[in-house]
């Protein structure tokens, strides 16, 4: 059955088709021949996740719904919901600032608000759908072990998606009206990223401050927190109760979520086109004037390339926020370090955290400098050898890593010299490995595609992640026993060598 053109159902079909193809493209990196492989990988992921969830969480399925359980479920829901809000804000900002089909829609004789209503609803539903791959195994495992009372969790996911979409719309529009279209794009994306990270980091900070560990569950299950929470009959527990198939709570949560979304759609959809037109006209950029003109400084091509990379990064707060977001996760271990000065212990925990963060940050920066070149023709036609260009770009990456991590390593070395030395060596090695992997898997792209870099080469993404984990593990073991670290170091070396072997650069050279 085909819906009548111009109706909300027709638009929903159009939007869902686009979303489906976009998702498929993301899954297969735009290559249809990879579809079967992607489907098998997704299937395997789902099976493994079910097995993991069954073994880890199954024991909680039959537990009585006491306050401790409600706290644990509520905290998990809140964390998931904040991540949904973060995703929805990202999606909403993209919807506002992407010109794509805006001209076509607004120039057509259809009622544009219907499409925009569908688009807002799609953002909310997509948020819920994105949570499903992780929620599905957990809920299924709980149903298998604890019975159908856990079935209500699916309804809660839907309600959470709707509420997250509504809040994202409200926050984005509020930012738009308060700080204007030029700044909203950047601020909204930063807010989205911070929202996503804030809860988990906050819990870790609380855990360290109160219990001296990085464990979040210690805080949530503590007597102090349980004493502070309201009675079991409170409405605060509705989402958690809804998960446990309390019919009244489930209906209440679903009603609130869907009503919030309906209200957001009713308020924003009629003006969505107007906002989007203003947003695209503003270009989403902070138009800045550079420093007062000074004379050109004598420079070499290598120095010019390095300076360009640093300047571009410095002037793009969105990229900085994206690349440095991982640094937020260093806040808890930094507090740990501060505490360890007085207690004299715990600094060995910092070593792998620093190494892991350095690996991830290096990977992001290396992609930006090596693959994310906005003027590839200019650099290619310059009278500079490709080797020199790459060398300058690698120097730019390592320069930033040194700038960020030197103070942290120095502080660590003061507290524990051996740990400082291990962390320093680990950071250098992991940064070189991550940069090398990006070099071997480099593809030409615009810097604005930074968020999609993981899609362009999943091999590079996995290689980079496993390399960082391998070097972090090596550093963690080395901090305690140098000789034992040989084993994880060998594994890490094999991982990097494997990445080199399967990389397109290596295959091209072999031909």
């Amino acid at each position, binding site marked *: 059955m085909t819906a009548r053109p111009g109706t909300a159902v027709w638009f929903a079909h159009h939007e869902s088709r686009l979303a489906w193809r976009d998702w498929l493209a993301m899954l297969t990196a735009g290559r249809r021949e990879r579809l079967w492989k992607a489907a098998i990988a997704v299937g395997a992921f789902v099976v493994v996740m079910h097995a993991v969830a069954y073994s880890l969480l199954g024991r909680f399925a039959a537990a009585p719904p006491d306050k401790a359980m409600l706290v644990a479920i509520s905290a998990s829901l809140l964390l998931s919901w904040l991540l949904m809000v973060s995703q929805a804000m990202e999606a909403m900002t993209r919807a506002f600032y992407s010109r794509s089909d805006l001209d076509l829609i607004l120039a057509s004789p259809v009622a544009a608000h219907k499409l925009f209503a569908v688009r807002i609803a799609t953002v909310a539903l997509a948020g819920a759908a994105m949570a499903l791959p992780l929620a599905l195994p957990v809920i299924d495992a709980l149903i298998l072990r604890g019975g159908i009372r856990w079935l209500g969790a699916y309804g809660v996911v839907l309600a959470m998606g709707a509420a997250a979409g509504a809040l994202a719309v409200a926050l984005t529009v509020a930012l738009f009206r308060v700080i204007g279209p030029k700044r909203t794009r950047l601020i909204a994306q930063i807010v989205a990223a911070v929202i996503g990270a804030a809860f988990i980091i906050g819990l870790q900070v609380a855990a360290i401050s109160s219990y001296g560990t990085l464990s979040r569950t210690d805080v949530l299950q503590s007597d102090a927190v349980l004493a502070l929470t309201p009675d079991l009959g409170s409405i605060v527990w509705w989402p958690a109760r809804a998960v446990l198939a309390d019919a009244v709570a489930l209906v209440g949560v679903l009603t609130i979520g869907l009503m919030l979304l309906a209200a957001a759609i009713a308020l924003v959809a009629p003006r969505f086109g107007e906002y989007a037109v203003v947003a695209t006209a503003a270009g989403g950029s902070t*138009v800045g004037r*550079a420093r007062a003109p000074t004379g050109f400084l004598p420079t070499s*091509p290598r120095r010019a*390339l390095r300076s360009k990379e640093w300047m571009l990064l410095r002037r793009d707060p969105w990229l900085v926020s994206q690349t440095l977001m991982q640094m937020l996760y260093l806040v808890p271990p930094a507090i740990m370090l501060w505490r360890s000065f007085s207690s004299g212990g715990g600094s060995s925990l910092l070593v792998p955290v620093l190494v892991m963060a350095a690996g991830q940050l290096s990977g992001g920066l290396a992609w930006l400098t090596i693959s994310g070149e906005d003027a590839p023709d200019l650099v290619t036609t310059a*009278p500079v050898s490709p080797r020199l260009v790459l060398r300058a770009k690698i120097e730019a990456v390592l320069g930033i890593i040194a700038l960020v991590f030197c103070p942290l390593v120095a502080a660590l070395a003061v507290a524990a010299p051996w740990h400082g030395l291990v962390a320093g060596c680990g950071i250098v090695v992991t940064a070189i490995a991550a940069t090398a992997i990006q070099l071997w898997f480099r593809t030409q792209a615009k810097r604005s595609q930074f968020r999609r870099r993981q899609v362009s080469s999943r091999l590079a993404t996995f290689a980079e992640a496993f390399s960082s984990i391998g070097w972090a593990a090596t550093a963690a073991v080395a901090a305690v026993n140098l000789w034992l670290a040989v084993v994880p170091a060998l594994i890490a070396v094999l991982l990097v060598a494997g990445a080199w072997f399967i990389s397109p650069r290596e295959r091209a050279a072999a031909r």
Partner: protein
Amino acid sequence: MISSPPFALEVRGLVKRFERPAVDGLDLAVRTGEFYALLGPNGAGKTTTLRMIAGLMRPDAGSIRIGGIDALADPVKAKRITAWISDEPMIYDKLTPREYLEFVAGLWAVEPALAQQQRADDLLRWLGLSANAGDRCESFSKGMRQKVALAGALVHEPRVIILDEPLTGLDAGSARQVKTVLRERTRAGGTVIMTTHILEVAERMADRIGVIAQGKLVAEGTLAELRLQAGERTDASASLEDTFLALVDAEAQAA
């Protein structure tokens, strides 16, 4: 005047294949100080040819000499005297025009710094960009971006300028500024090789015109010479458009 060999560009037997031959044994010779326009229908191989000359793509066969330098054997030396501009100006949004020119001057290692700066300021003034010299390029229109790219291409005073559809999307004023700057370059002894779909520009500006079809050069010369090569398909008063279409049509029928 720049002292140079008689031919700024010599291309012999150039071949590039993708799924089918994009450039198929192309020969081309452009004299020093000449304004040469390369015309052809869509997919004829114009852009592929220019990208190979600019060093953006390596040919499967053939040779390229720029200013007497073997561009395939010594690409860095050839690039030192060459500039490339495409129809889609690729510049850095977060840099100002002045910073962009400083970066380009650094890449080409132009010395001394004071001369670069003077040259950059002159270019920005000629192209009407002085008022925006300190603004980041992210807010610029396509015409302004194209002018920034052109200024970048000229800041190192190249002897050979290669342009792929440089006037696409420019308003009349911007197009005139670009044309004036290019004409100035040829007067100063530089060589310009340009593809365009705007036949009027080729007719008015080019010293010689090359017509490329299916990866081969099918005709070359001044407008009068092209009319002669088109033979009975055109008359002596035929416009470049008529002549071009006749030549391309003849090649298509021959194929």
